[in-house]
Structures are given as structure tokens and as C-alpha cells.
């Protein structure tokens, strides 16, 4: 009787069933789409961030902006530094001098600090691990000059000066400037930091035994653009390094943090920054303690900028972040709103249905149906309406998500070096650190008009948005439709149960 009646009611009152189910379906579909897009966005942000900051990093510590007077050789803070072409800097032939020099210095936006900070950080409560890196930019200059006496003493101040075009130095001269980013890291600590998020494409990664040696691991994108390969060599700070490995980002769409990775002590020696680091990557023993650690670090190291992954996520800009905020604001509220509307629709339709069927329920009570039997009947109807809506909603949501995944929209993600905010320094470090990313200015350095590595305001990565569907999202959506149906059914059933059996005798007006 129960199912016969249920089926007959739903079929017989098709319009109500359809309206309630459609409302529920739209809400459920939106919930699924918003959820899968937002988890896609989280993935995208995480992959952008992990390509910059490494996997497993909970907190990064960088030095706050140093005053320009502390900067190097009058160049902008952490800028390209100054080229000094000494008497023997080039070889002279036929009135022109061929010059080639390569210089390694801190990346624009990075400020070095003593690596004793690292041990301070490691001693902070709940810190399970910390790794220090030295983020550098290698700028090499090569070209020919017409006359030794016109020896240039060029000061590159990155963001402010106009980039030199080839031939800019006057008649007969031609030169190019090439810059790439270099990260010095402790090979023993490679579980943390930028090299932790990469996949090895060929060769090997840095090992503890590489300490102090001139070996380098090169980002695959950069290696391709410069035709570099394992066992080849690359000149960093005027020193030839042996390439031992090529790495790529785990995310197919983003490049790794830096063009070249070398052992930390080698980097410190070459850049004349022994005992200095620019970044510390910190791992917490539990994610619950991240804010405690952040507070402790800020207390113990007042001169540093301490940023959590959450702070880092807010530094991701571009259309990815626009979409992220669109989804997290509009999408969230829209789906909550639609869900509430669908629930309200289900409840109102159930209540009005019960009111219209007052005599029907009164009659059933008059012939002996119990309150429970009637409640169950009404609740069952609403539940099934909710479930039909839920099933249609899941189908609709799956189709929409599939459509998004087929379209796979590409979003631009930048790790911003905004002019304000707690994350300024490390943002800038990151931007300088990933010029190999497609679309970044200053990559593939050297060509006329190209900026210097330090000039990049923002490392832009194009990332394909996937909308991953998890079973949990689907189960959650179905659960929501069950909740909506039960809510409507409980309210409607309660009202039906309250009706008096004498309603059966009341004559219709």
C-alpha cells in the first residue's frame, strides 16, 4: 500500500513533483559544480604555490625589505648589481673588445640574512623541519665594445632603468644580457623547499655529497630553451657547473621555482654571501600549530616576514585568483541561496499539498490510519521528490563539470609581488625565482627589449583549470537532497498528523 500510494501520488501530482525536483536539481547541480570548480582552483593554487614554495612547506620566512642604503653597490635593493669590467675582462681584437661576464647576486626583492636564523627557527616549538635557501639571480653580459677606453661601467638597477637594447652602447658595439634565477639549497634537506615539489626528468637530484661542489640541477623548461642537458655545463657566476639533473614541475602547466638549483654552500661562496640565506621553508608538526608557530616566529624574528600557505594563496593573482574569489564568493552564496530556495520550495509545496489534501488525510484517519502511517506517507513523498531532484541534480552537475573539464579553461596565475602586504618580500623572491614560466617577462633573457630577471613584477603561469569530481561531492549532494526532502517531509508529515479525523466530515466550502 505504502509504495503504491506513494507512486500514485507522485505520478498523480506530477506538476508539484516536477517543480520540487527541478528546484532541488538546480541547487544540487550548482553545489556540485561550485564544489568541483573550487577544489579545482585549490589544486591549481596549490600547484602554483608548490612550484614556487615546494611541497610540504607550511610557512616561509624571508627578510623584510632592507633600506636602499643597505643595498649593494648603489643598485636597487637586491638588484642586478654592477658589472665591473676590469682590464682583463675581455679579449681585444681589431679595435673591438669581446666581453663576457657573469655575475651572481641576490635576486631582486630578496634580502639575505644570517643562516643562524635557521637554527633559531628550528628550535621554535612545533617546527618539525626547516630548510634555508639562497635565492640568487645570475646576470651574464656578453658582447663586443668598440674601444677599451669607452669601457662601460653599467649599473643595472632593474626596475627603473630602461633595459639596454643590443647596440645601445654606440657604434660597433653589440652585447646581450642574459639572466636566470639560481637557488642555493641544502641538498641534505631536499624534503623541504623548492626542490621537493619537482619530478626528476633525467639524471639525478642534488645529494648530500654535492656539498661544496659545482653541480647544478636545471629546470626542464629552462633547459629546453637553452638546449641544456645532463652532463652538459652551465656557467654560473663565471664558474662552470656540471649539470647533473633536469627537473620539471609536478604540475604539467607550471615550471619549477627556479631555473637552476645548486648546493647552498657553493652558492654562498660564489655570491660572496657565506653564511647567508634569503628564504627559510618551515614545516609544522601539525597543521593545527601553524598559527602558533607563525606567532612565535614573528616574536623571535621581528625583522622577518613570516607567511603561511594561506598568506601565500592570497598572493596568487591573475585570472586564477579572480575565478577563485568569484567561486568562493558568488558561487558559494549562489549555491547556498539556491539550496535554501529549493528547500523552501520543497517545504512550501509539501505544506500546501497537505493543506489541499486535508480531507484526504482526514478520511484516512477516519478509516483508522495512524498518525505515524500518514506522516510516513507524506515524508516518503517529499523524500522521493528530493531524491529525484538530487539524482537529476547529480546528473546535471556531472554534465556541467564534464563540460568544464572538456573546455578546460586556462587561467593565468601570478604570484604577486604586490607593493604592500605581509607577503611582499617573498612574493618578489618568488617572482624572480620563476622567470622560466611561460609569459613571464625577463625569461629567456638576453634578447633586445627583454627585461632583467629582477624586473618581473609577477611570475605568470598559465594553468588549466580542472574540476575534479570526488565521490564525496556526489554523496554530499545526494545527502543534501535527502536532507531537503526529509525536512519538507517532516514538516508536511507533522502537519498532516496534526489534522483531526473529523476533517473528513467537514463539507467543502
Amino acid at each position, binding site marked *: *500500500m*505504502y509504495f*503504491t*500510494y506513494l507512486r*500514485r*501520488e507522485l*505520478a*498523480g*501530482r506530477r506538476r508539484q513533483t516536477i517543480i520540487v525536483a527541478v528546484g532541488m536539481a538546480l541547487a544540487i547541480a550548482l553545489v556540485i559544480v561550485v564544489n568541483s570548480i573550487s577544489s579545482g582552483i585549490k589544486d591549481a593554487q596549490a600547484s602554483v604555490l608548490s612550484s614556487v614554495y615546494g611541497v610540504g612547506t607550511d610557512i616561509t620566512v624571508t627578510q623584510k625589505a632592507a633600506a636602499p642604503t643597505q643595498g649593494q653597490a648603489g643598485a636597487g635593493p637586491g638588484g642586478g648589481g654592477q658589472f665591473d669590467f676590469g682590464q682583463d675582462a675581455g679579449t681585444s681584437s681589431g679595435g673591438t673588445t669581446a666581453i663576457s661576464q657573469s655575475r651572481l647576486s641576490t635576486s631582486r626583492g630578496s634580502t639575505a640574512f644570517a643562516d643562524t636564523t635557521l637554527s633559531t627557527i628550528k628550535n621554535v616549538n612545533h617546527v618539525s623541519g626547516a630548510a634555508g635557501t639562497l635565492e640568487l639571480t645570475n646576470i651574464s653580459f656578453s658582447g663586443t665594445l668598440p674601444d677599451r677606453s669607452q669601457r662601460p661601467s653599467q649599473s643595472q638597477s632593474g626596475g627603473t632603468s630602461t633595459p639596454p637594447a643590443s647596440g645601445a652602447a654606440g657604434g660597433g658595439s653589440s652585447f646581450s644580457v642574459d639572466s636566470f634565477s639560481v637557488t642555493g639549497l641544502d641538498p641534505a634537506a631536499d624534503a623541504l623547499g623548492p626542490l621537493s615539489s619537482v619530478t626528476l626528468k633525467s639524471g639525478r637530484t642534488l645529494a648530500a655529497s654535492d656539498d661544496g661542489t659545482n653541480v647544478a640541477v636545471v629546470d626542464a623548461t629552462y633547459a629546453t630553451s637553452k638546449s641544456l642537458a645532463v652532463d652538459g655545463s652551465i656557467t654560473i657566476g663565471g664558474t662552470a657547473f656540471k649539470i647533473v639533473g633536469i627537473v620539471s614541475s609536478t604540475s604539467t602547466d607550471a615550471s619549477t621555482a627556479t631555473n637552476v638549483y645548486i648546493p647552498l654552500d657553493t652558492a654562498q661562496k660564489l655570491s660572496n654571501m657565506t653564511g647567508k640565506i634569503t628564504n627559510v621553508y618551515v614545516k609544522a608538526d601539525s597543521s593545527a600549530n601553524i598559527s602558533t608557530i607563525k606567532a612565535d616566529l614573528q616574536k623571535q624574528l621581528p625583522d622577518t616576514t613570516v607567511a603561511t600557505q594561506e598568506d601565500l594563496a592570497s598572493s596568487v593573482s591573475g585570472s586564477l585568483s579572480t575565478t577563485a574569489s568569484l567561486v568562493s564568493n558568488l558561487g558559494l552564496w549562489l549555491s547556498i541561496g539556491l539550496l535554501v530556495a529549493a528547500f523552501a520550495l520543497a517545504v512550501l509545496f509539501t505544506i500546501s499539498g497537505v493543506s489541499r489534501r486535508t*480531507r*484526504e488525510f482526514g*478520511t*484516512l*484517519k*477516519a*478509516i*483508522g*490510519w*495512524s*498518525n505515524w*502511517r500518514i506522516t510516513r506517507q507524506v515524508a516518503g513523498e517529499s523524500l522521493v521528490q528530493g531524491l529525484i531532484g538530487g539524482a537529476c541534480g547529480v546528473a546535471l552537475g556531472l554534465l556541467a563539470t564534464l563540460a568544464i573539464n572538456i573546455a578546460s579553461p586556462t587561467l593565468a596565475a601570478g604570484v604577486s609581488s604586490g607593493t604592500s602586504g605581509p607577503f611582499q618580500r617573498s612574493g618578489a623572491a618568488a617572482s624572480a625565482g620563476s622567470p622560466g614560466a611561460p609569459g613571464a617577462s625577463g625569461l629567456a633573457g638576453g634578447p633586445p627589449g627583454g627585461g632583467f630577471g629582477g624586473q618581473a613584477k609577477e611570475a605568470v603561469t598559465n594553468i588549466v583549470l580542472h574540476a575534479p569530481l570526488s565521490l564525496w561531492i556526489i554523496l554530499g549532494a545526494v545527502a543534501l537532497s535527502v536532507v531537503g526532502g526529509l525536512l519538507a517531509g517532516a514538516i508536511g508529515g507533522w502537519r498532516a498528523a496534526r489534522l*483531526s*479525523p*473529523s476533517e*473528513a*466530515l467537514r*463539507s*467543502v466550502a
Partner: protein
Amino acid sequence: MSLNQNSTVATNSIPERESVMYQLTSVTKNYAHKGKTVRALDVAELSIPAGQMVAIQGPTGGGKSTLLQMLGALDRPTSGSITFGGKDLATLRSAQLGTIRAEKIGFIFQNFNLIPTLNAAQNVETALAVNGVDKAGRKERALEALAAVGLADRADHLPSELSGGQQQRVAIARALVKNPQVLLADEPTGNLDEAMRDEVMELLERQWREKNLTLIMVTHDSAVARRAQRRLRIAHGKVTEAK
């Protein structure tokens, strides 16, 4: 569930006109209407023997439906006692009244009150669903009951596909399928034209006779009322014998 099955079964199966089906003593029913109390029913003493066919007449608003509600265990009186099958309906809980309605009382309404989405057979089955009859038994008994009212060939028709007289016959089948002791009818022919009215009345009378029912029927129709063994008149809540 401590209903006195033995005595009620006995009165039903053996035509013992002397046994009492209903005994009402000092029964009143008040309704609150616009802040005032309306006494819809005020019965000092009323006894209805088992197997009697009673017609109730009276002006609109006189209290006919209210009396039927009390007899049908749809509602409790404000005061007084209504003894039915050895129990005082005034003191029973709602669930117990529900059980009595399900097992012992058949109801017929002026507007038929069929479930519009269920077909004739399913409508009849609703009366058995509460009586622990299994699915096959329900189906079989519903078809039997429909056959008894001459609608064997309309079992799968929806109420909207039946005439008024046919709908009321389905309702009669629904009321009788559980073999109740009492059949209560509130203006059963009020919505029917003359031909259908006679058809339904003949059916009710025949069922009453065949099944030894106690039939209590509210009617405006004197021709219908004349067929009854006893006629009661209710006005302003007071019951008087009208024979």
C-alpha cells in the same frame, strides 16, 4: 487492544436485537467559535441497539455531523460517556480510537472522499492496510467488496473516471471491506441525483440486512429516512425520537 471481541462478534453474528451497540449518557460537545463556546451537541440519554437502522434528520447546523463524529470515534465528547463495545469512547486515547475506527467502524461521506490518485481497488485496500491483512489478501478482499457493490469491472478506474453513484459505491465497498459492526453515513445520497440515490440506498439497505450491520445515517431526504427502522431528529444539539 483489549477490546471485548467476544461480545461484539456475538452481537454481530447472532441477530440479537436486544443487545446495545451504543449507549450515550450526558454527552455534550462544545466548539469554540469566535471566542464563544458553541454547544453543538447535548444528549442526555441515547441508546442504539445493535443491528438497528437509524435515520438522523434535522436542520443544518443542528448537530447531526457532530453526533456522527462522536459515534464514529473521530472525536471525543466534551463531557459524558459513549459506551461502544464495552469501552467508553470518551476516555480512550487517540491511538485507541484509531484502532476502533480501523476495525469496527465503517464511514461513508457525502463527498465520497476517495483518494483521487488511487484506483477503485486501491481505495478499498486503504481500509485493510491498517488491519494487518497481507498484500494478496487485501487485493482479493478489495475485489470481492467491489463485486458486492457491483463494480467488479471498475476495479482499476480512478475516482475521476467514475460517476458519483459509482464513487459512492466504491466508498461503501471501502467502508464494508473490513466487516465493521457499524456503518455510519453522513448524507450519503446528498450529492447524488435521484436515480443514483435509489441505487445507493438499495445497496446500503441490502448490505445492512445481509451483514447484520448497525446502520446510522444522516439524511435530508424523507424518502430515504422512511426506510429506516428508527428516525431521530437533532436540532440545537438536542436529540428527539421522530416516529
